[in-house]
C-alpha cells in the first residue's frame, strides 16, 4: 500500500480507534475470542463495547429466558421476545451491531451443569467474563480458570454500586502508552555522537542566525559541561544554589556580539525554552523500578524451553543493560520538538535514532543467542526484529501483572475504607443469597420483609465480623444495599460495561495498563477506588 493510497472500508470504520491501538492492536482484537457468562444488562453492555470495535468472536452462556423486567433494563432484548432464550436473543441483537463479529450462544445446559459435567473447553477463549454470577458458581469457575491460566473478569452491578475484579495468572504489558513521559535524552549520560556534535559547536564562532536557532537541548548540554568544568563536578546541579549557578551560565550564553538593543529587549525563544525545560532535561537517567523488578523476576532469571518469549526479551534487555548499556536501557530514540531550524532538529533526531537502532540490534542479537540456546529459534524469526523494536522503545514501561486468585473474601470483613465497605457489603449479600436463594430486599411489595431481610443481613455481618459493634457507616451501607434489592440500573451497568470492555481490550492487545486488581465504583458520589486484593 503506497503512502497516499486511500484507506479501505474497515480502516475508515475503525479509524478513530486505530489511532489508539494501531493496526497490530486491531489485529489482536479481531483474532480474540471471549466468553460471557450472564447475558443480563451488565453482560450485554460489556459485550457491546467489544463488538463495536470489532472483537473476533464471543460465546454467551445463559440458560435464562427473557423476562418483562429484562425489558426495563437490558438494551439487547425486546418485549416481543419475552419467554424466549435470553442467550439467543441477546446474541442476535449484539451481532447486529457489527456483522464482522462472530457470535454464538449456549442456553443449555446452565453454567452450573456445564461446570459439573466438566467437558466444556474454556481454553478456546482468551478471556472469560462473568456478569453478576452468584458466588457459589463463580468460585468453581474461577478455580477452574486459574488452573487453566485463562484470565477472568468478574463484573457486578448492584443498585448504584459496581465492581470489577481481575483474576489474571500472568499478563504482559508491552505498550503502556504512559500519559506523561520524560523524554530519554540522557544529558547526564550523553550519547557519544551527541557529545561530539555539541563539542563541534562553539558559542564564540556562531553567527547570529545560528545562535538564534541553536536547539535548547544543545544549549542545556553545553551549559552543563561549563557548569561541571567550572565547579569540578561530573553530575547534575541539584541544590537551589547549584541551579542558580547553572542558570547564570545559561544567561551568559544567551548573549551574542551581533545582538543589538532591539534583540536584547526581545527574549530569545530557544534560550527561554532551555530554561523552561530544565526540570525535564536535567534529570538523572536510570533504570525504571518496573524494569528492575522484571530483571529480578524468577521467570527472567530461569529461562527454560517453555518460557514465554516476553521473558526471553527481558533477559536480552538485561544482558544489554549489564554490558553495552553500561547500566542503562536501550535509547528510546525519540526527540521532542524544539524551537530550532530544520537541519539542527533533523540532526538531533538522527543522532538519537541511530543510537536506538544500534542498541536494538544488540538486544536482538542477545535474543537470538538465547533462543538458540534454549532451542526456541524457528522460522518465526522474521517478526523478531520488529518485536524487539517495540520492546526496546517501551522498555522503561514494560510490566507484568499477576493477580491473586479469587478466594473467600471473609478476611476483608473488618476493613473500614469506605468503598471497600461496599465491596464487603456485596459479599454479605452473596452469603444471604446462598442462604435464602434470593437477595436481601429483592421483594418490593412487602415492607415487613424488607425489615426482616435487613436484620438477617446485619446478623450475617455480625457473624463474620470480629467486632462487637457495627459502625454507622456499615449500617448505612447494609440498609442501602437492601434498598437496592440487587436492582440492575442500566446507567450503572453501562459504566461498568464500558470500563470492563476496555480492560479486556488492554488484556487482548497488551497495550495500556490494566487495573490491579479490583475496582469499586460508587455511583452515588461518582467515585472509583482501586484495591489490590
Amino acid at each position, binding site marked *: 500500500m503506497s503512502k497516499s*493510497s486511500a484507506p479501505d472500508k474497515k480502516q475508515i470504520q475503525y479509524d478513530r480507534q486505530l489511532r489508539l491501538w494501531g493496526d497490530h492492536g486491531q489485529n489482536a482484537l479481531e483474532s480474540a475470542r471471549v466468553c460471557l457468562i450472564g447475558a443480563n444488562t451488565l453482560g450485554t453492555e460489556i459485550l457491546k463495547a467489544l463488538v463495536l470495535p470489532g472483537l473476533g468472536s464471543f460465546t454467551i452462556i445463559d440458560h435464562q429466558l427473557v423476562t418483562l*423486567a429484562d425489558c426495563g433494563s437490558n438494551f439487547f432484548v425486546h418485549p416481543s421476545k419475552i419467554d424466549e432464550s435470553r442467550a439467543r436473543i441477546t446474541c442476535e441483537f449484539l451481532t447486529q451491531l457489527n456483522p464482522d463479529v462472530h457470535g454464538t450462544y449456549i442456553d443449555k445446559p446452565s453454567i452450573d451443569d456445564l461446570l459439573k459435567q466438566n467437558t466444556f473447553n474454556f481454553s478456546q477463549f482468551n478471556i472469560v467474563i462473568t456478569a453478576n454470577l452468584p458466588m457459589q458458581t463463580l468460585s468453581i469457575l474461577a478455580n477452574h480458570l486459574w488452573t487453566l491460566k485463562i484470565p477472568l473478569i468478574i463484573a457486578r452491578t448492584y443498585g448504584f454500586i459496581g465492581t470489577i475484579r481481575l483474576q489474571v495468572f500472568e499478563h504482559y504489558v508491552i505498550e503502556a502508552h504512559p500519559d506523561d513521559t520524560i523524554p530519554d535524552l540522557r544529558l547526564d549520560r550523553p550519547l557519544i555522537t551527541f557529545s561530539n556534535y555539541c563539542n563541534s559547536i562553539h558559542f564564540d564562532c556562531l553567527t547570529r542566525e545560528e545562535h538564534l536557532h541553536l536547539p535548547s537541548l544543545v544549549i542545556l548540554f553545553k551549559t552543563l559541561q561549563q557548569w561541571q568544568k567550572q565547579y569540578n563536578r561530573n553530575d547534575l546541579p541539584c541544590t537551589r544554589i547549584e541551579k542558580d549557578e547553572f542558570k547564570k551560565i545559561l544567561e551568559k550564553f544567551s548573549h551574542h556580539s551581533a545582538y543589538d538593543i532591539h534583540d536584547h529587549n526581545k527574549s530569545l525563544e530557544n534560550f527561554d525554552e532551555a530554561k523552561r525545560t530544565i526540570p525535564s532535561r536535567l534529570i538523572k537517567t536510570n533504570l525504571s523500578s518496573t524494569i528492575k523488578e522484571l530483571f529480578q523476576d524468577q521467570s527472567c532469571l530461569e529461562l527454560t524451553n517453555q518460557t514465554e518469549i516476553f521473558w526471553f526479551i527481558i533477559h536480552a534487555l538485561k544482558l544489554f543493560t549489564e554490558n553495552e548499556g553500561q547500566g542503562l536501557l536501550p535509547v528510546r530514540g525519540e526527540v521532542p520538538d524544539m524551537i530550532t531550524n530544520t537541519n539542527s532538529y533533523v540532526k538531533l533526531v538522527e543522532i538519537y535514532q541511530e543510537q536506538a537502532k544500534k542498541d536494538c540490534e544488540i538486544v536482538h542479537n542477545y535474543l537470538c543467542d538465547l533462543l538458540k540456546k534454549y532451542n526456541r529459534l524457528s522460522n518465526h524469526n522474521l517478526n523478531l526484529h520488529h518485536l524487539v523494536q517495540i520492546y526496546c522503545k517501551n522498555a522503561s514501561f514494560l510490566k507484568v501483572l499477576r493477580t491473586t486468585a479469587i478466594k473467600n473474601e471473609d478476611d476483608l470483613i473488618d476493613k473500614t475504607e469506605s468503598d471497600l465497605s461496599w465491596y464487603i457489603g456485596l459479599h454479605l449479600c452473596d452469603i444471604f443469597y446462598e442462604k435464602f436463594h434470593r437477595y436481601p430486599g429483592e421483594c418490593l411489595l412487602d415492607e415487613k420483609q424488607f425489615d426482616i431481610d435487613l436484620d438477617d443481613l446485619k446478623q450475617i455481618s455480625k457473624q463474620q465480623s470480629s467486632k462487637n459493634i457495627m459502625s454507622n457507616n456499615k449500617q448505612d451501607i447494609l440498609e442501602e444495599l437492601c434498598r437496592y434489592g440487587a436492582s440492575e440500573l442500566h446507567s450503572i451497568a453501562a459504566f461498568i460495561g464500558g470500563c470492563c470492555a476496555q480492560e479486556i481490550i488492554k488484556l487482548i492487545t497488551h497495550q495500556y495498563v490494566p487495573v490491579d486488581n479490583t475496582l469499586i465504583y460508587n455511583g452515588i458520589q461518582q467515585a472509583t477506588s482501586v484495591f489490590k486484593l
Partner: protein
Amino acid sequence: MVVPTDDSTTKKQWIHLRRILERAGPFKDPNFEPSTELLSAIESVKILIIGAGGLGCELLKDLALMGFCQIDIIDMDTIDLANLNRQFLFTKADIGKSKAEVAAKFIMNRIPNCNVTPHMNKIQDFDASFYSEFRIIVCGLDSVVARRWINSMLVSMLQYDEDNQLIPSSIIPLIDGGTEGFKGNARVIMHGFTSCIECTLDLFPPQVNFPQCTIANNPRLPEHCVEWVTSILWPKEKPFGQDIKIDGDNVEHIQWIVEHATKRANDHNITGINFRFTQGVVKRIIPAVASTNAVIASICATEVFKLASSSVMLMNNYTMFNDIEGIYMLTYPPEKKEDCPICSNVPIRIQMSETSKFQEFIDLLIEKYHLIAPLIYTEINGNSKTLYMTSTEQMSEATRPHLKMTLQELGLTNGAELLVGDPARASSMRVILTLTSSMETSTAK
C-alpha cells in the same frame, strides 16, 4: 411503536427502578419522598439531548432505559462510516441519513412507549421558547463553541426577583459530557450555584496551532509539512478549483495533500507522512472508542435520573475519567467565578483611555472573554450604530475604518453601554465603558 400496556405490566417492567424510587435509603437527597408515583413522574419529564453522536447515542439508550419517555434530540449531522465504531444506533445502511432521525427511530423501536422527537438542526436554530420546555438538558457535543452557546442560552433564561435574587425554579440543569480517546469528563451545572462552562474555559484543552515561522521556514515534524500544504500551498495553487476549500473527507483532497506534504518532508529529511496521519492533522481528528463514550454518557444519565427523582445525592459536580493506566476518576467542584461574564449576573465594565484605538478595545475583548468573531453595537444619540462586524464581506468593509479610530472619535462617551454578540454566545453581553481622558490616564499612573 406503542405497545399497549397496563399499569401492572409497566410496574413489572420497571421493577429495577422502582426499588430505588419507592424506598428511601441513607444516601438519598434530602428532597426525596419515596413514592409509587415517581415512575410516572419520570416518564413524563421532558429531557433534551444535544448531539446524537458518540455520546448522544449512549445517552439516548441510557435515559430510555432509566424510565424517561419524553426525549427530544438535536443533531445537524448525517451519518458517516467512521462513526460506526461507536455510534451504535446506526448501521452501514444508514450512512448519509440524519443522525437524530435514525437514532430516534432505533430507540422507539427497541424500547416501545419511549417517545423520541428528533430535530435535524443546529442548536442556534432554536430560541428560549424551545429550550424552556425542558426540565433537564444533557449535552454530548464535540465543540467548545456550541457548549458556550447553550450555556449562555440557559443563563439568559434565568429569572431574578425584585431583590435581584435568582429564582431557583428558573434554573434548567445542564449536564455536559465530553470525551477524547481514553479520557472524559462529565459535569452537572446549576447556573447561579455551580461553576458554568464559561467560568471554567481553562479546563478545555487548547486548540492545536503551529507558529507561522515554523510552518514557513523551519519545519521539523511531519505535521508542520501538512500544515504548510494546507495553509500555504493549497491557497496558492487552488488545485481543485478557484473557490474550492479543503474537504477533509474528500479522498482526492487528502491524497493531494499527502503527495505534496511528502515532497516537502523529503526535502527536509522528515519522515512519517501517510494518509491516516495527514487526514488526522487536516481534520484535527480526535481518537474515539465506544468504551469511553459509554462511561461518560452513563455518568450523565445517572445524574439526570438523580435530578429527576432526588432518589440519591447528586455528584458534586465535575468528574474527570481516565482509563489509560488502571481506571482513575476524580470528582470535585470547580470554582464558580464571581465575575464570570455569563453566569455572575453583573455587567462587564471596561476602563480605557478615550484616545485608545478601537482595535485595542476589540483585541482586549477578544482576549479577555475568549471571543471568536464579535459583533459590537451601541446607541449613540438615540441611534443604533454597528461598530464592528465581520460576518459578511460588506459589513467587514463598512466597519473596518472604525478600527483605526479612537474611542472618542467613534462617539463613545464615559458610561456608554455596548452590546457584544459572538458565535460563542446565545445573547449579547452588556459592556459598560469607563472612558478616562488622556490627562486622567497619565496622572493615574
